[in-house]
């Protein structure tokens, strides 16, 4: 089971959009996962394997044991699919 978080500033907007896209990509990958949305400050205290977030918020997550994946375009399913695939390959 891998624990995945979509992180944005407040856990309400960007991360909600990211969550639906991550879910599709993770389902396609076939891995066993748990996916949740959180804000940047709460994310620091979470036990996670993978955190998907923006370049701006990734700075504040440095030091987290999770692998931080930066998404540039949150609308772009192709970018998200590709980065999910890469991240899962690295974890395994």
């Amino acid at each position, binding site marked *: 089971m891998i624990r995945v978080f979509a992180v944005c500033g407040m*856990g309400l907007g*960007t991360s909600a959009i990211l969550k639906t896209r991550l879910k599709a990509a993770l389902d396609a990958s076939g891995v066993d996962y748990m996916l949740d949305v959180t804000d940047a400050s709460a994310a620091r205290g979470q036990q996670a394997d993978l955190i998907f977030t923006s370049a701006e918020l990734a700075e504040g997550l440095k030091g987290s044991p999770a692998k931080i994946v930066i998404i540039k375009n949150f609308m772009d399913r192709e970018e998200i699919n590709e980065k999910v695939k890469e991240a899962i390959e690295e974890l395994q």
Partner: protein
Amino acid sequence: MVDDAERTPDLAASFPREAVRSGLHCADWREAVRAAGSLLVATGAATEDYVDAIVRAVEELGPYIVLAPGIALAHARPEDGGTAVGFSLVKLAEPVEFGSEHNDPVDLVFAFASPDSEQHITALAALADFIESGDNLARIRAASNDEELYRVIQEAN
């Protein structure tokens, strides 16, 4: 269990004609964000405090709200003054810089408000899917007045 789609407002209900403006001139990101936020106030989705909170959020958290090339999604927390689910869009005459590493400059500023952390999700997901599909984004950018822009957005439903 009640289906999400039944209890949460859809995009058509949350994106009124008065919440769409095309060709606004804004000097900087603050003005652009305030313009989009003011439309939420005008349509009864948020209070004036909510607009201030959006600006503060960008100042504190950085320009992460610029979530795709040229597109910002401005919002604050429900407790900052969200009174109903509502969306707005300001299309700028001249793009502005938010300081985003990957996605500046911005010409489309969407804003939303919600009375809680759940009710806006269905409409927000519909909006994101619409923006991403086919030539919808190009059509949003090509719209030359409020009415045209509104008609394009309404097709998202």
